Protein backbone atom coordinates (compact mmCIF):
# COMPACT_ATOMS: atom_id res chain seq x y z
CA UNK A 1 0.00 0.00 0.00
CA UNK A 2 1.18 3.51 -0.57
CA UNK A 3 0.57 7.03 -1.71
CA UNK A 4 -2.64 7.49 0.18
CA UNK A 5 -3.36 11.15 0.64
CA UNK A 6 -6.50 12.04 2.50
CA UNK A 7 -7.72 15.20 4.17
CA UNK A 8 -10.79 15.26 6.37
CA UNK A 9 -12.68 18.49 6.76
CA UNK A 10 -14.63 19.40 9.86
CA UNK A 11 -18.24 18.45 9.81
CA UNK A 12 -17.79 16.52 6.59
CA UNK A 13 -18.03 12.92 5.55
CA UNK A 14 -15.15 11.67 3.50
CA UNK A 15 -15.91 8.46 1.67
CA UNK A 16 -13.21 5.88 1.05
CA UNK A 17 -14.34 3.43 -1.60
CA UNK A 18 -12.84 0.40 -3.28
CA UNK A 19 -13.30 -3.32 -3.59
CA UNK A 20 -12.46 -5.64 -0.72
CA UNK A 21 -8.75 -6.06 -0.21
CA UNK A 22 -7.97 -2.64 -1.62
CA UNK A 23 -6.66 -1.36 1.71
CA UNK A 24 -9.54 0.74 2.98
CA UNK A 25 -9.74 -0.85 6.42
CA UNK A 26 -5.96 -0.85 6.81
CA UNK A 27 -5.98 2.89 6.13
CA UNK A 28 -8.47 3.39 8.98
CA UNK A 29 -6.54 1.12 11.35
CA UNK A 30 -3.28 2.90 10.51
CA UNK A 31 -4.77 6.16 11.82
CA UNK A 32 -5.20 4.54 15.23
CA UNK A 33 -1.86 2.75 15.12
CA UNK A 34 -3.70 -0.58 15.24
CA UNK A 35 -2.31 -2.24 12.12
CA UNK A 36 -2.10 -6.00 12.57
CA UNK A 37 1.22 -7.47 13.64
CA UNK A 38 4.16 -6.90 11.35
CA UNK A 39 2.69 -3.97 9.40
CA UNK A 40 3.81 -0.41 9.92
CA UNK A 41 2.61 2.88 8.59
CA UNK A 42 5.03 5.39 7.12
CA UNK A 43 4.50 8.97 6.08
CA UNK A 44 2.39 11.29 8.12
CA UNK A 45 -1.01 11.23 9.79
CA UNK A 46 -1.75 14.55 11.44
CA UNK A 47 -4.53 15.27 13.83
CA UNK A 48 -5.33 18.95 14.28
CA UNK A 49 -5.05 20.09 17.89
CA UNK A 50 -7.99 22.45 17.77
CA UNK A 51 -9.67 21.45 20.98
CA UNK A 52 -9.72 18.84 23.68
CA UNK A 53 -6.59 17.54 25.35
CA UNK A 54 -4.24 18.49 22.49
CA UNK A 55 -5.43 22.07 22.12
CA UNK A 56 -2.83 24.78 21.96
CA UNK A 57 0.17 22.59 21.19
CA UNK A 58 3.06 24.37 19.49
CA UNK A 59 2.79 22.64 16.14
CA UNK A 60 -1.00 22.77 16.04
CA UNK A 61 -1.26 19.06 15.29
CA UNK A 62 -0.41 15.65 16.69
CA UNK A 63 1.64 13.34 14.48
CA UNK A 64 0.22 9.83 14.78
CA UNK A 65 2.70 7.86 12.66
CA UNK A 66 5.38 6.52 14.97
CA UNK A 67 3.80 8.22 17.97
CA UNK A 68 4.67 6.71 21.35
CA UNK A 69 2.14 4.29 22.80
CA UNK A 70 1.01 6.72 25.47
CA UNK A 71 0.14 9.37 22.89
CA UNK A 72 -1.74 6.86 20.76
CA UNK A 73 -3.71 5.55 23.72
CA UNK A 74 -4.70 9.10 24.55
CA UNK A 75 -5.91 9.63 20.99
CA UNK A 76 -7.73 6.32 20.55
CA UNK A 77 -11.33 6.58 21.59
CA UNK A 78 -10.75 10.08 22.93
CA UNK A 79 -10.01 12.12 19.80
CA UNK A 80 -10.30 9.53 17.04
CA UNK A 81 -12.93 6.82 17.47
CA UNK A 82 -13.86 3.89 15.30
CA UNK A 83 -17.03 2.04 14.36
CA UNK A 84 -16.50 -1.47 13.04
CA UNK A 85 -18.26 -3.38 10.32
CA UNK A 86 -20.21 -5.95 12.27
CA UNK A 87 -21.70 -4.82 15.58
CA UNK A 88 -22.46 -8.42 16.53
CA UNK A 89 -18.71 -9.03 16.82
CA UNK A 90 -17.41 -5.58 17.75
CA UNK A 91 -19.44 -5.38 20.96
CA UNK A 92 -18.39 -7.80 23.70
CA UNK A 93 -21.19 -10.39 24.02
CA UNK A 94 -20.55 -10.90 27.75
CA UNK A 95 -20.49 -7.27 28.86
CA UNK A 96 -23.61 -5.17 29.43
CA UNK A 97 -24.02 -2.30 26.99
CA UNK A 98 -23.72 0.26 29.78
CA UNK A 99 -20.30 -1.02 30.77
CA UNK A 100 -19.04 -0.86 27.17
CA UNK A 101 -20.35 2.67 26.83
CA UNK A 102 -18.78 3.93 30.01
CA UNK A 103 -15.42 2.21 30.57
CA UNK A 104 -13.45 4.44 28.18
CA UNK A 105 -15.40 7.52 29.30
CA UNK A 106 -14.33 6.87 32.85
CA UNK A 107 -10.76 6.22 31.74
CA UNK A 108 -10.35 9.18 29.35
CA UNK A 109 -12.59 11.77 30.96
CA UNK A 110 -12.20 10.68 34.58
CA UNK A 111 -15.95 10.53 35.11
CA UNK A 112 -17.50 8.77 38.08
CA UNK A 113 -19.88 5.90 37.54
CA UNK A 114 -23.16 7.88 37.90
CA UNK A 115 -22.00 10.70 35.61
CA UNK A 116 -20.76 8.23 33.01
CA UNK A 117 -24.04 6.32 33.08
CA UNK A 118 -26.05 9.52 32.74
CA UNK A 119 -23.94 10.50 29.75
CA UNK A 120 -24.29 7.02 28.26
CA UNK A 121 -28.05 7.26 28.58
CA UNK A 122 -28.03 10.63 26.79
CA UNK A 123 -25.84 9.13 24.04
CA UNK A 124 -28.23 6.24 23.47
CA UNK A 125 -31.05 8.76 23.22
CA UNK A 126 -29.02 10.72 20.71
CA UNK A 127 -28.47 7.69 18.46
CA UNK A 128 -32.17 6.84 18.98
CA UNK A 129 -31.92 3.53 20.82
CA UNK A 130 -35.33 3.07 22.47
CA UNK A 131 -35.55 2.89 26.29
CA UNK A 132 -32.02 4.20 26.77
CA UNK A 133 -32.03 3.70 30.53
CA UNK A 134 -33.14 0.07 30.30
CA UNK A 135 -30.75 -0.57 27.42
CA UNK A 136 -27.73 0.16 29.64
CA UNK A 137 -28.14 -3.07 31.59
CA UNK A 138 -28.93 -5.23 28.59
CA UNK A 139 -26.47 -7.30 26.58
CA UNK A 140 -25.72 -6.86 22.86
CA UNK A 141 -27.58 -10.01 21.80
CA UNK A 142 -30.81 -8.52 23.11
CA UNK A 143 -30.81 -5.85 20.40
CA UNK A 144 -31.45 -5.96 16.66
CA UNK A 145 -28.55 -5.48 14.25
CA UNK A 146 -29.42 -1.86 13.49
CA UNK A 147 -29.75 -1.00 17.18
CA UNK A 148 -26.44 -2.71 17.90
CA UNK A 149 -24.71 -0.55 15.30
CA UNK A 150 -26.32 2.53 16.85
CA UNK A 151 -24.94 1.41 20.19
CA UNK A 152 -21.49 0.94 18.63
CA UNK A 153 -21.75 4.48 17.24
CA UNK A 154 -22.73 5.74 20.69
CA UNK A 155 -19.66 3.96 22.13
CA UNK A 156 -17.51 5.76 19.54
CA UNK A 157 -19.06 9.14 20.34
CA UNK A 158 -18.77 8.75 24.10
CA UNK A 159 -15.64 10.88 24.58
CA UNK A 160 -16.60 13.54 22.01
CA UNK A 161 -13.96 12.66 19.40
CA UNK A 162 -13.19 15.00 16.50
CA UNK A 163 -12.73 12.17 14.01
CA UNK A 164 -14.92 9.12 13.53
CA UNK A 165 -13.62 6.24 11.43
CA UNK A 166 -16.59 4.22 10.20
CA UNK A 167 -15.47 0.94 8.62
CA UNK A 168 -18.28 -0.46 6.49
CA UNK A 169 -20.79 0.53 9.18
CA UNK A 170 -23.83 -0.62 7.19
CA UNK A 171 -22.48 -3.66 5.35
CA UNK A 172 -23.53 -6.19 7.97
CA UNK A 173 -26.97 -4.64 8.43
CA UNK A 174 -30.31 -5.38 6.83
CA UNK A 175 -31.00 -3.11 3.87
CA UNK A 176 -34.03 -1.74 5.66
CA UNK A 177 -32.00 -0.34 8.56
CA UNK A 178 -28.95 0.81 6.55
CA UNK A 179 -30.57 4.10 5.58
CA UNK A 180 -31.33 4.93 9.22
CA UNK A 181 -27.72 4.41 10.28
CA UNK A 182 -26.41 6.46 7.33
CA UNK A 183 -28.81 9.25 8.16
CA UNK A 184 -27.55 9.19 11.73
CA UNK A 185 -23.94 9.57 10.51
CA UNK A 186 -24.97 12.46 8.28
CA UNK A 187 -26.68 14.19 11.21
CA UNK A 188 -23.63 13.71 13.41
CA UNK A 189 -21.40 15.29 10.78
CA UNK A 190 -23.84 18.14 10.23
CA UNK A 191 -23.83 18.67 13.99
CA UNK A 192 -20.59 20.57 13.53
CA UNK A 193 -17.28 19.40 14.87
CA UNK A 194 -17.14 15.76 13.86
CA UNK A 195 -15.29 14.62 10.73
CA UNK A 196 -16.23 11.17 9.49
CA UNK A 197 -14.14 8.84 7.36
CA UNK A 198 -16.67 6.48 5.84
CA UNK A 199 -15.05 3.32 4.54
CA UNK A 200 -17.26 1.29 2.23
CA UNK A 201 -17.24 -0.79 -0.91
CA UNK A 202 -20.79 0.38 -1.62
CA UNK A 203 -20.90 3.38 -3.91
CA UNK A 204 -24.65 3.58 -3.35
CA UNK A 205 -23.96 4.31 0.31
CA UNK A 206 -21.31 6.79 -0.74
CA UNK A 207 -23.56 8.70 -3.10
CA UNK A 208 -26.12 9.02 -0.33
CA UNK A 209 -24.01 10.69 2.34
CA UNK A 210 -20.39 11.47 1.42
CA UNK A 211 -19.12 15.01 0.75
CA UNK A 212 -15.80 13.92 -0.71
CA UNK A 213 -15.00 10.52 -2.18
CA UNK A 214 -11.66 8.77 -2.55
CA UNK A 215 -11.46 5.60 -4.59
CA UNK A 216 -8.78 3.02 -3.80
CA UNK A 217 -7.58 0.02 -5.72
CA UNK A 218 -4.93 -2.48 -4.66
CA UNK A 219 -3.60 -0.22 -1.95
CA UNK A 220 -3.41 2.89 -4.10
CA UNK A 221 -5.64 5.92 -4.44
CA UNK A 222 -6.96 6.13 -7.99
CA UNK A 223 -9.19 9.15 -7.69
CA UNK A 224 -10.30 11.68 -5.12
CA UNK A 225 -12.98 14.26 -5.77
CA UNK A 226 -16.07 15.95 -4.34
CA UNK A 227 -19.06 13.65 -4.52
CA UNK A 228 -20.88 15.55 -7.24
CA UNK A 229 -17.87 15.59 -9.50
CA UNK A 230 -16.95 11.96 -8.92
CA UNK A 231 -20.40 10.67 -9.63
CA UNK A 232 -21.10 12.82 -12.66
CA UNK A 233 -17.68 13.14 -14.23
CA UNK A 234 -15.29 10.44 -13.02
CA UNK A 235 -11.84 10.81 -14.47
CA UNK A 236 -10.41 7.42 -13.73
CA UNK A 237 -11.22 4.30 -15.69
CA UNK A 238 -11.58 2.18 -12.55
CA UNK A 239 -13.98 4.64 -10.94
CA UNK A 240 -16.07 4.47 -14.07
CA UNK A 241 -16.26 0.70 -13.97
CA UNK A 242 -17.27 0.84 -10.31
CA UNK A 243 -20.01 3.31 -11.11
CA UNK A 244 -21.11 1.19 -14.02
CA UNK A 245 -21.54 -1.73 -11.65
CA UNK A 246 -24.20 0.21 -9.71
CA UNK A 247 -27.66 -1.01 -10.66
CA UNK A 248 -29.58 1.54 -12.71
CA UNK A 249 -26.48 3.61 -13.22
CA UNK A 250 -26.21 6.02 -16.12
CA UNK A 251 -22.67 4.75 -16.55
CA UNK A 252 -23.87 1.36 -17.64
CA UNK A 253 -23.22 2.29 -21.22
CA UNK A 254 -19.86 3.80 -20.48
CA UNK A 255 -18.93 0.67 -18.54
CA UNK A 256 -19.79 -1.48 -21.51
CA UNK A 257 -17.70 0.75 -23.72
CA UNK A 258 -14.75 0.67 -21.38
CA UNK A 259 -14.60 -3.09 -21.58
Amino acid at each position, binding site marked *: MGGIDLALSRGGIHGLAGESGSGKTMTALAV*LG*LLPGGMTASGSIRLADTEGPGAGSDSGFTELVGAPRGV*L*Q*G*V*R*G*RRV*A*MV*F*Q*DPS*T*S*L*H*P*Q*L*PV*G*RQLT*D*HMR*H*HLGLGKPEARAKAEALLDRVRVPDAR*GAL*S*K*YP*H*QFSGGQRQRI*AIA*VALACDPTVLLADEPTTALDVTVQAGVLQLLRELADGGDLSILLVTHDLGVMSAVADEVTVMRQGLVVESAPRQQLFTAPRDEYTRSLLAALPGSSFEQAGEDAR
Partner: protein
Amino acid sequence: MTSSTTAVRPPRTRGGRTAHPFLRYALRRVLTSLLLVVGVTLVTFVLTNLVPGDPVAAALGQRAAEDPAIVAQFRATYGLDQPLVVQYFTYLGNLLHGDLGVSTTTHNPVVDDLAKALPATLEIALGAIVLSVIIGVVLGTIAAYRRGKASDHVLRVVSLAGLSVPTFWLALVLYYVFYFQLHIAPGSGRLSSDFSTPPHVTGLTTVDALLAGQLDTFLDAASHLFLPVLVLTLYTVGLLTRFVRTAVLEILDQDYVRAARAKGLPTRTVIWSYVLRGASIPILTVVGLAFGSLLSGTVLVEAIFAWPGIGSYAYQAASHLDLPGIMGVGLLIGVMYLLVNLIVDLLYGVLDPRVRLAS
Protein backbone atom coordinates in the same frame (compact mmCIF):
# COMPACT_ATOMS: atom_id res chain seq x y z
CA MET B 1 -24.80 -10.52 39.30
CA THR B 2 -27.12 -7.65 40.02
CA SER B 3 -26.88 -6.37 36.48
CA SER B 4 -28.05 -9.72 35.15
CA THR B 5 -31.21 -9.76 37.19
CA THR B 6 -32.20 -6.34 35.97
CA ALA B 7 -31.30 -7.26 32.42
CA VAL B 8 -33.69 -10.17 32.50
CA ARG B 9 -36.73 -7.99 33.07
CA PRO B 10 -37.98 -7.41 29.53
CA PRO B 11 -37.77 -10.73 27.67
CA ARG B 12 -40.66 -13.18 27.82
CA THR B 13 -42.12 -12.67 31.24
CA ARG B 14 -45.62 -12.42 29.82
CA GLY B 15 -48.12 -15.23 29.35
CA GLY B 16 -47.70 -16.90 32.72
CA ARG B 17 -44.20 -18.24 31.96
CA THR B 18 -42.68 -16.25 34.76
CA ALA B 19 -39.85 -18.69 35.54
CA HIS B 20 -36.49 -16.99 35.25
CA PRO B 21 -34.81 -18.43 32.11
CA PHE B 22 -31.68 -19.20 34.08
CA LEU B 23 -33.66 -21.10 36.71
CA ARG B 24 -35.21 -23.25 34.01
CA TYR B 25 -31.78 -23.82 32.49
CA ALA B 26 -30.38 -24.77 35.90
CA LEU B 27 -33.30 -27.06 36.68
CA ARG B 28 -32.89 -28.87 33.38
CA ARG B 29 -29.20 -29.40 34.04
CA VAL B 30 -29.83 -30.70 37.56
CA LEU B 31 -32.46 -33.18 36.33
CA THR B 32 -30.15 -34.43 33.55
CA SER B 33 -27.40 -34.91 36.12
CA LEU B 34 -29.69 -36.95 38.38
CA LEU B 35 -30.56 -39.23 35.47
CA LEU B 36 -26.87 -39.65 34.75
CA VAL B 37 -26.25 -40.61 38.39
CA VAL B 38 -28.53 -43.62 37.87
CA GLY B 39 -26.47 -44.45 34.79
CA VAL B 40 -23.29 -44.23 36.85
CA THR B 41 -24.66 -46.68 39.44
CA LEU B 42 -25.43 -49.16 36.66
CA VAL B 43 -22.00 -48.80 35.07
CA THR B 44 -20.08 -49.12 38.34
CA PHE B 45 -22.18 -52.12 39.33
CA VAL B 46 -21.75 -53.96 36.04
CA LEU B 47 -18.05 -53.13 35.70
CA THR B 48 -17.33 -54.23 39.24
CA ASN B 49 -19.05 -57.54 38.66
CA LEU B 50 -17.17 -58.08 35.43
CA VAL B 51 -13.85 -57.96 37.28
CA PRO B 52 -12.19 -61.36 37.08
CA GLY B 53 -11.23 -62.78 40.45
CA ASP B 54 -13.27 -64.17 43.28
CA PRO B 55 -14.11 -61.57 45.92
CA VAL B 56 -15.06 -64.35 48.33
CA ALA B 57 -11.65 -65.90 48.25
CA ALA B 58 -10.03 -62.49 48.53
CA ALA B 59 -12.10 -61.60 51.58
CA LEU B 60 -11.92 -64.93 53.39
CA GLY B 61 -8.42 -66.00 52.58
CA GLN B 62 -7.31 -69.21 50.88
CA ARG B 63 -8.08 -71.69 53.67
CA ALA B 64 -11.56 -70.47 54.59
CA ALA B 65 -12.46 -70.25 50.91
CA GLU B 66 -11.93 -74.00 50.62
CA ASP B 67 -14.72 -74.68 53.12
CA PRO B 68 -18.05 -74.62 51.20
CA ALA B 69 -20.08 -73.91 54.36
CA ILE B 70 -18.15 -70.75 55.19
CA VAL B 71 -18.29 -69.59 51.58
CA ALA B 72 -22.07 -70.16 51.42
CA GLN B 73 -22.57 -68.28 54.63
CA PHE B 74 -20.38 -65.41 53.40
CA ARG B 75 -22.29 -65.23 50.10
CA ALA B 76 -25.62 -65.19 51.97
CA THR B 77 -24.44 -62.47 54.36
CA TYR B 78 -23.42 -60.16 51.53
CA GLY B 79 -26.32 -61.15 49.24
CA LEU B 80 -23.94 -62.63 46.66
CA ASP B 81 -26.17 -65.71 46.24
CA GLN B 82 -28.88 -63.62 44.57
CA PRO B 83 -29.11 -63.08 40.77
CA LEU B 84 -27.20 -59.99 39.53
CA VAL B 85 -30.37 -58.06 38.69
CA VAL B 86 -31.72 -58.56 42.19
CA GLN B 87 -28.32 -57.58 43.59
CA TYR B 88 -28.42 -54.35 41.52
CA PHE B 89 -31.85 -53.34 42.75
CA THR B 90 -30.95 -54.20 46.32
CA TYR B 91 -27.87 -52.02 45.81
CA LEU B 92 -29.99 -49.16 44.43
CA GLY B 93 -32.52 -49.47 47.25
CA ASN B 94 -29.76 -49.37 49.86
CA LEU B 95 -28.16 -46.46 48.05
CA LEU B 96 -31.33 -44.43 48.47
CA HIS B 97 -30.93 -44.90 52.22
CA GLY B 98 -27.32 -43.80 52.00
CA ASP B 99 -26.10 -47.37 52.44
CA LEU B 100 -23.22 -48.44 50.21
CA GLY B 101 -22.65 -51.71 51.99
CA VAL B 102 -19.86 -52.75 54.32
CA SER B 103 -16.27 -52.85 53.18
CA THR B 104 -14.83 -56.36 53.29
CA THR B 105 -11.39 -54.91 54.11
CA THR B 106 -12.06 -52.31 56.80
CA HIS B 107 -15.38 -53.82 57.97
CA ASN B 108 -16.76 -50.27 58.22
CA PRO B 109 -19.74 -48.98 56.27
CA VAL B 110 -18.33 -47.79 52.93
CA VAL B 111 -20.20 -44.49 53.33
CA ASP B 112 -18.31 -43.74 56.54
CA ASP B 113 -14.98 -44.66 54.96
CA LEU B 114 -15.63 -42.44 51.97
CA ALA B 115 -16.85 -39.55 54.11
CA LYS B 116 -13.56 -39.71 55.99
CA ALA B 117 -11.42 -40.02 52.86
CA LEU B 118 -13.16 -37.46 50.62
CA PRO B 119 -12.05 -34.28 52.43
CA ALA B 120 -8.41 -35.41 52.27
CA THR B 121 -8.65 -35.85 48.50
CA LEU B 122 -10.58 -32.62 48.04
CA GLU B 123 -7.93 -30.75 49.99
CA ILE B 124 -5.14 -31.66 47.56
CA ALA B 125 -7.34 -31.63 44.46
CA LEU B 126 -8.80 -28.19 45.21
CA GLY B 127 -5.36 -26.85 46.13
CA ALA B 128 -3.94 -28.18 42.88
CA ILE B 129 -6.75 -26.90 40.66
CA VAL B 130 -6.69 -23.40 42.19
CA LEU B 131 -2.92 -23.19 41.78
CA SER B 132 -2.97 -24.53 38.23
CA VAL B 133 -5.72 -22.14 37.16
CA ILE B 134 -3.85 -19.12 38.52
CA ILE B 135 -0.51 -20.18 37.04
CA GLY B 136 -2.03 -21.52 33.81
CA VAL B 137 -4.04 -18.39 33.07
CA VAL B 138 -1.11 -16.08 33.76
CA LEU B 139 1.44 -18.10 31.77
CA GLY B 140 -0.99 -18.91 28.95
CA THR B 141 -1.93 -15.26 28.54
CA ILE B 142 1.71 -14.19 28.54
CA ALA B 143 2.53 -16.84 25.93
CA ALA B 144 -0.36 -15.71 23.73
CA TYR B 145 0.67 -12.06 23.95
CA ARG B 146 4.27 -12.95 23.14
CA ARG B 147 3.35 -15.37 20.42
CA GLY B 148 6.38 -16.46 18.45
CA LYS B 149 8.84 -14.74 20.78
CA ALA B 150 11.41 -16.55 22.90
CA SER B 151 9.30 -16.52 26.07
CA ASP B 152 6.44 -18.15 24.16
CA HIS B 153 8.67 -20.99 22.98
CA VAL B 154 10.14 -21.52 26.45
CA LEU B 155 6.65 -21.69 27.98
CA ARG B 156 5.49 -24.12 25.34
CA VAL B 157 8.42 -26.48 25.85
CA VAL B 158 8.09 -26.30 29.64
CA SER B 159 4.34 -26.96 29.56
CA LEU B 160 4.84 -29.86 27.17
CA ALA B 161 7.44 -31.28 29.57
CA GLY B 162 4.97 -30.88 32.43
CA LEU B 163 2.36 -32.78 30.43
CA SER B 164 4.73 -35.57 29.49
CA VAL B 165 6.24 -36.40 32.89
CA PRO B 166 4.45 -39.34 34.55
CA THR B 167 2.84 -38.17 37.79
CA PHE B 168 3.89 -41.16 39.91
CA TRP B 169 7.52 -40.81 38.82
CA LEU B 170 7.52 -37.10 39.61
CA ALA B 171 5.95 -37.81 42.98
CA LEU B 172 8.65 -40.38 43.83
CA VAL B 173 11.48 -38.10 42.71
CA LEU B 174 10.18 -35.05 44.58
CA TYR B 175 9.55 -37.13 47.69
CA TYR B 176 13.07 -38.53 47.52
CA VAL B 177 14.72 -35.14 46.93
CA PHE B 178 12.71 -32.97 49.33
CA TYR B 179 12.23 -35.50 52.13
CA PHE B 180 15.15 -37.96 52.12
CA GLN B 181 17.86 -35.71 50.70
CA LEU B 182 17.06 -32.12 51.59
CA HIS B 183 14.84 -32.74 54.65
CA ILE B 184 12.74 -29.73 53.64
CA ALA B 185 9.41 -31.45 53.15
CA PRO B 186 7.70 -33.30 55.99
CA GLY B 187 7.03 -37.02 55.66
CA SER B 188 3.88 -38.67 54.48
CA GLY B 189 0.36 -38.22 55.79
CA ARG B 190 -1.68 -35.11 56.52
CA LEU B 191 -0.07 -34.07 59.84
CA SER B 192 3.15 -34.78 61.72
CA SER B 193 2.72 -37.24 64.58
CA ASP B 194 3.07 -34.58 67.28
CA PHE B 195 0.00 -32.71 66.05
CA SER B 196 -3.56 -33.83 66.62
CA THR B 197 -6.28 -33.38 64.04
CA PRO B 198 -8.18 -30.13 64.64
CA PRO B 199 -11.91 -30.29 65.49
CA HIS B 200 -13.85 -31.52 62.47
CA VAL B 201 -15.75 -28.78 60.63
CA THR B 202 -15.01 -29.07 56.92
CA GLY B 203 -12.68 -32.07 57.04
CA LEU B 204 -9.99 -29.99 55.32
CA THR B 205 -7.19 -30.00 57.88
CA THR B 206 -5.84 -26.60 56.92
CA VAL B 207 -9.24 -24.91 57.07
CA ASP B 208 -10.25 -26.66 60.30
CA ALA B 209 -6.96 -25.65 61.92
CA LEU B 210 -7.54 -22.03 60.96
CA LEU B 211 -11.12 -22.17 62.22
CA ALA B 212 -9.85 -23.55 65.51
CA GLY B 213 -7.21 -20.82 65.63
CA GLN B 214 -4.37 -23.36 65.72
CA LEU B 215 -1.79 -21.61 63.59
CA ASP B 216 1.02 -24.14 64.12
CA THR B 217 -1.30 -27.02 63.16
CA PHE B 218 -2.25 -25.07 60.04
CA LEU B 219 1.39 -24.57 59.08
CA ASP B 220 2.16 -28.24 59.62
CA ALA B 221 -0.87 -29.29 57.55
CA ALA B 222 0.08 -26.83 54.81
CA SER B 223 3.63 -28.17 54.68
CA HIS B 224 2.26 -31.71 54.31
CA LEU B 225 0.04 -30.48 51.50
CA PHE B 226 2.94 -28.92 49.63
CA LEU B 227 4.42 -31.91 47.79
CA PRO B 228 1.22 -33.74 46.76
CA VAL B 229 -0.32 -30.46 45.61
CA LEU B 230 2.86 -29.57 43.73
CA VAL B 231 2.87 -32.89 41.89
CA LEU B 232 -0.79 -32.64 40.92
CA THR B 233 -0.35 -28.98 39.93
CA LEU B 234 2.55 -29.78 37.62
CA TYR B 235 0.33 -32.44 36.10
CA THR B 236 -2.50 -30.05 35.17
CA VAL B 237 -0.70 -26.72 34.76
CA GLY B 238 0.91 -27.73 31.47
CA LEU B 239 -2.43 -28.67 30.01
CA LEU B 240 -4.03 -25.45 31.24
CA THR B 241 -1.21 -23.21 30.02
CA ARG B 242 -1.36 -24.63 26.52
CA PHE B 243 -5.11 -24.42 26.43
CA VAL B 244 -5.29 -20.86 27.78
CA ARG B 245 -2.72 -19.79 25.20
CA THR B 246 -4.84 -21.16 22.37
CA ALA B 247 -8.07 -19.69 23.77
CA VAL B 248 -6.52 -16.25 24.32
CA LEU B 249 -4.97 -16.24 20.85
CA GLU B 250 -8.38 -16.89 19.38
CA ILE B 251 -9.98 -14.09 21.42
CA LEU B 252 -7.17 -11.64 20.55
CA ASP B 253 -8.32 -11.94 16.97
CA GLN B 254 -11.89 -10.94 17.83
CA ASP B 255 -13.33 -7.63 16.67
CA TYR B 256 -14.36 -6.69 20.19
CA VAL B 257 -10.74 -6.78 21.32
CA ARG B 258 -9.74 -4.54 18.40
CA ALA B 259 -12.67 -2.30 19.33
CA ALA B 260 -11.56 -2.18 22.97
CA ARG B 261 -8.05 -1.14 21.85
CA ALA B 262 -9.56 1.45 19.52
CA LYS B 263 -11.30 2.89 22.57
CA GLY B 264 -7.89 3.64 24.06
CA LEU B 265 -8.40 1.44 27.11
CA PRO B 266 -5.24 0.53 29.03
CA THR B 267 -3.82 -2.89 28.12
CA ARG B 268 -4.60 -4.17 31.63
CA THR B 269 -8.30 -3.40 31.17
CA VAL B 270 -8.33 -4.88 27.67
CA ILE B 271 -6.84 -8.14 29.00
CA TRP B 272 -9.01 -8.47 32.10
CA SER B 273 -12.35 -7.13 30.98
CA TYR B 274 -12.32 -8.10 27.33
CA VAL B 275 -9.82 -10.84 26.45
CA LEU B 276 -10.01 -13.06 29.54
CA ARG B 277 -13.76 -12.57 29.85
CA GLY B 278 -14.11 -13.81 26.28
CA ALA B 279 -11.73 -16.72 26.90
CA SER B 280 -13.39 -17.60 30.21
CA ILE B 281 -15.90 -20.02 28.69
CA PRO B 282 -13.43 -22.32 26.89
CA ILE B 283 -11.08 -22.03 29.88
CA LEU B 284 -13.87 -23.05 32.24
CA THR B 285 -14.55 -26.12 30.10
CA VAL B 286 -10.98 -27.29 30.29
CA VAL B 287 -10.72 -26.53 34.02
CA GLY B 288 -13.70 -28.85 34.55
CA LEU B 289 -12.00 -31.58 32.53
CA ALA B 290 -8.70 -31.03 34.34
CA PHE B 291 -10.40 -31.31 37.73
CA GLY B 292 -11.98 -34.58 36.63
CA SER B 293 -8.65 -36.02 35.59
CA LEU B 294 -7.10 -34.73 38.84
CA LEU B 295 -9.58 -36.82 40.82
CA SER B 296 -8.46 -39.98 39.06
CA GLY B 297 -4.82 -38.89 38.89
CA THR B 298 -4.79 -38.57 42.66
CA VAL B 299 -4.76 -42.38 43.19
CA LEU B 300 -1.03 -42.91 42.62
CA VAL B 301 -0.04 -39.64 44.25
CA GLU B 302 -2.01 -40.51 47.38
CA ALA B 303 -0.51 -43.98 47.46
CA ILE B 304 3.04 -42.52 47.34
CA PHE B 305 2.46 -39.85 49.98
CA ALA B 306 0.32 -42.17 52.16
CA TRP B 307 -2.40 -39.55 51.87
CA PRO B 308 -5.56 -41.00 53.46
CA GLY B 309 -7.92 -39.99 50.64
CA ILE B 310 -10.17 -41.58 48.05
CA GLY B 311 -7.18 -42.63 45.97
CA SER B 312 -5.56 -44.61 48.79
CA TYR B 313 -8.90 -46.12 49.65
CA ALA B 314 -9.50 -47.14 46.02
CA TYR B 315 -6.01 -48.64 45.84
CA GLN B 316 -6.59 -50.63 49.01
CA ALA B 317 -10.08 -51.77 47.99
CA ALA B 318 -8.91 -52.80 44.52
CA SER B 319 -5.98 -54.81 45.80
CA HIS B 320 -8.27 -56.72 48.22
CA LEU B 321 -11.09 -57.16 45.67
CA ASP B 322 -13.34 -55.38 48.13
CA LEU B 323 -16.42 -55.05 45.90
CA PRO B 324 -18.50 -52.68 48.08
CA GLY B 325 -15.44 -50.49 48.49
CA ILE B 326 -14.64 -50.46 44.76
CA MET B 327 -18.24 -49.73 43.84
CA GLY B 328 -18.40 -46.97 46.41
CA VAL B 329 -15.26 -45.30 45.05
CA GLY B 330 -16.47 -45.72 41.45
CA LEU B 331 -19.80 -44.22 42.31
CA LEU B 332 -18.25 -41.35 44.25
CA ILE B 333 -15.80 -40.45 41.49
CA GLY B 334 -18.58 -40.73 38.89
CA VAL B 335 -20.83 -38.46 40.93
CA MET B 336 -17.95 -36.00 41.44
CA TYR B 337 -17.44 -35.85 37.67
CA LEU B 338 -21.13 -35.16 37.18
CA LEU B 339 -21.10 -32.56 39.92
CA VAL B 340 -18.11 -30.78 38.38
CA ASN B 341 -19.86 -30.87 35.01
CA LEU B 342 -23.02 -29.49 36.54
CA ILE B 343 -21.09 -26.67 38.21
CA VAL B 344 -19.33 -25.91 34.91
CA ASP B 345 -22.68 -25.83 33.08
CA LEU B 346 -24.18 -23.50 35.67
CA LEU B 347 -21.10 -21.26 35.51
CA TYR B 348 -21.56 -21.01 31.73
CA GLY B 349 -24.85 -19.33 32.56
CA VAL B 350 -23.13 -16.95 34.97
CA LEU B 351 -20.38 -16.07 32.48
CA ASP B 352 -22.42 -15.93 29.30
CA PRO B 353 -25.61 -13.86 29.18
CA ARG B 354 -26.57 -15.58 25.94
CA VAL B 355 -26.86 -18.87 27.83
CA ARG B 356 -28.45 -17.24 30.85
CA LEU B 357 -31.06 -15.19 29.01
CA ALA B 358 -31.89 -17.46 26.11
CA SER B 359 -35.01 -19.53 26.61
